[in-house]
C-alpha cells in the first residue's frame, strides 16, 4: 500500500486499465516455452516505459482491495449488485462477454495507432558477420552452415544467369531474389522435407535447398519438353510435388489461405509437419492474408507465415502500403504469435524459423515471422526500379548489406570457409546448365484440364492435328506433334 499513496491516482487508473488487459492477455496464452520474448513484446504494448521498472508483479495491483478508483458512484442498486456478484471478491468491474471477461474502465482511453516503441528486430550477426554478444540462437553445424552458404551463392549465380538470359531475349521473363538469399536459404534449412511450402514467387532458394537442380530451373524458364509444367506456365512458376513445393501462382497472397488449409489437413492427419507460406509486404494488404491469419488462429493450424518485408511492392513503398508498424504487430490482432527478424542475417532467420516450426508442430499454433530486408533487384525483368528509387540506395544495400557476404564472414571466422573454396564453388555452378532442348508436344495443350480428357477436347485435338497435317508449312518445324 505504501506506493499507492505515493503515486497519483490518475496514473494508477491508467495502469489499472492497461494492467487489467495485460493480465487478461497472460491468462489466454497458457503455456509458452518462449515466454521471455512474449513478455517483452506485450509489456511494450501496454505499459508506459517509465513505469516499467516499478511493476515487477503487476498482477498484485488489481487484486488488492482499496485500489479501486473512487469516481462518482452511481446510486442505483443495479451497479452495486453487479459489484457484489463479481466473483473472487475482485473490486474491478468485469463484463461477462461471449469472447471472455473484459475489465471496465471509467477512463476513456484510445489504443494508440502506433506503438510507443517499434517492435524489436531479432538479429544475431552484426553487419561484419560477428556474433553479437548475449545473443541467443539455434546453433548450426559446420556442414549445414557451409551448405547454406553454397546455396546462397548458387542462388545469386542462378539469378544472374537467368536475368542475363532474359535481357538477351532467350527467356521472356524472370524474377530475381537478390538481397533475399538469407531469407530463402536459411528458412529452408530450418524446415524439414516434410514441411509443405506455399511460395509467392521470390523464393526459388527454398526449392534449390531441397534439391531442385539448375537444369530443372532452366527447363521451367525455357518451357521445354522436360519442363514439369509442360510449358504451360510463365518462367519462375516452379513447382515440385516430390520436394513438397507447391507450384507458384501469379495471383498475390492466394497461397496464404491455401497454406492454412493444408496445415489444417496436416493436423487432421496427425503428421509431424507444418505448412510454410511466403509473401511480401504488399501481399499483406490482400484480403486473403487477413482471412488466412484469422482462420489459422481459430483453427489452431500448424502454419508458419513468413513475410519478406523488402520495402517495396513493385513501385509502392511500405509507407503507401500500410500504416501499421510493419507486419509482426498484426499477429497480435489475430491472436497469432509473431516475431520481427533481420532478414539479411542468415543465422537469425535460421533460429527464428527453427523455433517457429517447433511451436507450430508441437503446440498446433500459427506463427508469423516478419523478415525485414531490401529488394535489391528490380521487381522483375519488366521493371526498372531506378525510376522510383535512388540508384545509390540500391547500391548501398547491395554492397554494404549483402546477406551472402555477411554470412561468409561468419563462416570464415569459424574457420569453415576460405577463398579457395569460394573460387571453386563459383566456377562449378556455371557449368551445370544446358540450354537447347525440344519444346513440349502439341497434345500437352489438351491434357490435365480435367483428371480424364473430355470428349470435346479430344475432338479439338484431332481437328488440330488434321489441320496441321493439311498445312505443314504454316506450322513451326521444331515443335513436335
Amino acid at each position, binding site marked *: 500500500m505504501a506506493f499507492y499513496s505515493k503515486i497519483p491516482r490518475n496514473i494508477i487508473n491508467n495502469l489499472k486499465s492497461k494492467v487489467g488487459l495485460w493480465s487478461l492477455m497472460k491468462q489466454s496464452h497458457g503455456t509458452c516455452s518462449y515466454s521471455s520474448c512474449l513478455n517483452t513484446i506485450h509489456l511494450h504494448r501496454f505499459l508506459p516505459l517509465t513505469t516499467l521498472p516499478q511493476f515487477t508483479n503487476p498482477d498484485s495491483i488489481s487484486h488488492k482491495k482499496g485500489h479501486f478508483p473512487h469516481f462518482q458512484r452511481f446510486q442505483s442498486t443495479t451497479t452495486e449488485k453487479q459489484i457484489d456478484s463479481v466473483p473472487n471478491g475482485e473490486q474491478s468491474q468485469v463484463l461477462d462477454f461471449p469472447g471472455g471477461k473484459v475489465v471496465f474502465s471509467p477512463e476513456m482511453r484510445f489504443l494508440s495507432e502506433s506503438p510507443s516503441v517499434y517492435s524489436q528486430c531479432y538479429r544475431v550477426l552484426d553487419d561484419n558477420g560477428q556474433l553479437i554478444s548475449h545473443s541467443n540462437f539455434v546453433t548450426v553445424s559446420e556442414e549445414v552452415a557451409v551448405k547454406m552458404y553454397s546455396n546462397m551463392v548458387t542462388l545469386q549465380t542462378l539469378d544472374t544467369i537467368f536475368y542475363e538470359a532474359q535481357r538477351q531475349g532467350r527467356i521472356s521473363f524472370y524474377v530475381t531474389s537478390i538481397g533475399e538469399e538469407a531469407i530463402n536459404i536459411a528458412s529452408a534449412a530450418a524446415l524439414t522435407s516434410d514441411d509443405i511450402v*506455399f511460395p509467392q514467387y521470390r523464393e526459388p532458394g527454398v526449392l534449390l535447398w531441397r534439391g531442385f537442380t539448375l537444369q530443372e530451373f532452366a527447363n521451367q524458364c525455357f518451357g521445354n519438353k522436360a519442363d514439369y*509444367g509442360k510449358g504451360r506456365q510463365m518462367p519462375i512458376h516452379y513447382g515440385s510435388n516430390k520436394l513438397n513445393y507447391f507450384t507458384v501462382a501469379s495471383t498475390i497472397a*492466394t497461397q496464404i*489461405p491455401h497454406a492454412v*488449409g493444408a496445415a489444417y*489437413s496436416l493436423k487432421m492427419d496427425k503428421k509431424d509437419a507444418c505448412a510454410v507460406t511466403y509473401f511480401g509486404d504488399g501481399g499483406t494488404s490482400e484480403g486473403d492474408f487477413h482471412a488466412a491469419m484469422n*482462420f489459422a488462429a481459430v483453427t489452431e493450424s500448424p502454419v508458419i507465415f513468413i513475410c519478406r518485408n523488402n520495402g517495396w511492392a513493385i513501385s509502392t513503398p511500405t509507407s503507401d502500403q500500410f500504416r501499421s508498424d510493419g507486419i509482426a504487430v498484426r499477429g497480435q490482432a489475430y491472436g497469432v504469435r509473431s516475431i520481427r527478424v533481420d532478414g539479411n542475417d542468415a543465422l537469425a532467420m535460421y533460429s527464428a524459423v527453427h523455433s517457429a516450426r517447433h511451436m507450430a508442430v508441437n503446440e498446433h499454433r500459427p506463427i508469423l515471422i516478419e523478415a525485414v530486408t531490401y529488394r535489391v533487384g528490380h521487381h522483375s525483368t519488366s521493371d526498372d526500379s531506378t525510376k522510383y528509387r535512388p540508384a545509390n540506395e540500391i547500391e548501398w544495400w547491395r554492397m554494404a548489406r549483402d546477406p551472402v557476404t555477411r554470412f561468409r564472414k561468419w563462416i570464415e571466422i569459424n574457420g569453415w570457409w576460405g577463398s579457395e573454396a569460394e573460387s571453386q564453388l563459383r566456377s562449378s555452378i556455371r557449368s551445370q546448365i544446358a540450354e537447347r532442348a525440344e519444346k513440349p508436344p502439341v497434345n500437352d495443350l489438351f491434357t*490435365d484440364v480435367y*483428371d480424364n480428357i*473430355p470428349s470435346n477436347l479430344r475432338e479439338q485435338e484431332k481437328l488440330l492435328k488434321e489441320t496441321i497435317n493439311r498445312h505443314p508449312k504454316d506450322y513451326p518445324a521444331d515443335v513436335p506433334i
Partner: protein
Amino acid sequence: MLGIVRQKMLEQSLKKIRPAVSVLRSYSSAAKQMTVREALNSALDEEMSADSKVFLMGEEVGEYQGAYKITKGLLDKYGPERVLDTPITEAGFTGIAVGAAYYGVKPVVEFMTFNFSMQAIDHIINSAAKTNYMSSGRISVPIVFRGPNGAAAGVGAQHSQCYAAWYASCPGLKVLAPYSSEDARGLLKAGIRDPDPVVFLENELLYGESFPVSDEVLDSSFCLPIGKAKIERKGKDVTIAAYSKMVGYALKAAETLEKDGIDAEVINLRSIRPLDRSTINASVRKTNRLVTVEEAFPQHGVGAEICASIVEESFAYLDAPVERIAGADVPMPYAANLERMAVPQVIYHFSLFSYNYQYIYTHICIYMHANTHNFIHL
C-alpha cells in the same frame, strides 16, 4: 505424391461400397418419397462415412445444422474436425478449402448462396479450376462447392442470381444442377467422388419438394454419371431443355401443352459443364424444335450455349429458330408481383391459338410467361 495417394484412396473407398446393385433392381417396390433436403443430407452422410477424407466447411454448417438444414446432424455424427463452422470470409474459407484439397483431402464447401461465392470466385477459378492444368496434372483439386443458386422467394437482387453460365464457361470446372431428389443424391455423390473441382448448384425452393425415389437411388453406392442429361418426358413435337427448378416448370408446361395436342419432350440437363450436347441434338433431330428454359439472365447464358450447339450441329433439322426463355434482364426486384414477372412462370390458360405448328413457340412462351418479349426486342 499427392496424385498417387488420392488415386489409391479413391479406389479403396469405391471398393468398400459396392454391394450387388443388380439384386435390388429386380424388386419393384412402391416408390418412397424423399425431399431434396433429405437427399442431399443422406448423400453427404454416406460419402463422409465411406471416405474419411471428406469433410464439410461453411458458414453455419455445424452448430446451426446448416443455414438450410442440409447438413443437419452431421456435426454430431462426425465431430468438429470434419464439420467446420467457418468465420465469415468466403474468400478465406474457399482458399483454405482449396489448400486442403491440394494437400489431398476432399472438402465440400458450402456457400450460403452462390451469390456469396463471388467473393471467393478468384479461388474457385484461379486456385481450383486451373490448377490441375497449370501444374500439369501434379496437383489435383478434389473439391466440391455447393449451395443454393438462382432465385428464391423475396430475397432481392443480391441473393437471386443464377451462376450456372458463369462457372460453366470456365474449363477445369464441372458444373452440376440437380432437379429431383434422385438427381441431388446421385450427382452430389458423383461430385464428391470426382477428382476435379465441382460446382454443385442447388435450389432453395426445391429443398422442401418431395420426389419418389427407388431403392436403387437409396442405395449408398448410387451415383449418376456426370455429363449425361435425362429425358424426363418423352415427346415428339418440341424439345424443352431446362435445368434445376425450371425442369419442374417445363414438365408442368408440357402437361398443359398435351391438352392442346402438343407432345413436348422435356430434357433435364443435370450437367451444365460438361453439357450433354449429344442428347439435346438427338432430341432436336427428332422433334425439329427447341425451347431452352432458365431462370438466369438471358445474355451469354446456358440457353445461348445450347442454341449455338444446335445451330452448329443440327441446323438442317431445325424447323424454326431456337427459342430461349430466361429471366428478365434486370436485377431481381423484391416486391412479390415484380419478382413473379422477372422469372419464367407457368400459366394454365386454355389455348386461344390455332393448332398450327408455326404457333407452337408462341404457345409455350405465353404458357411459360417469360419475358422473352422484352428480351427478343433488345
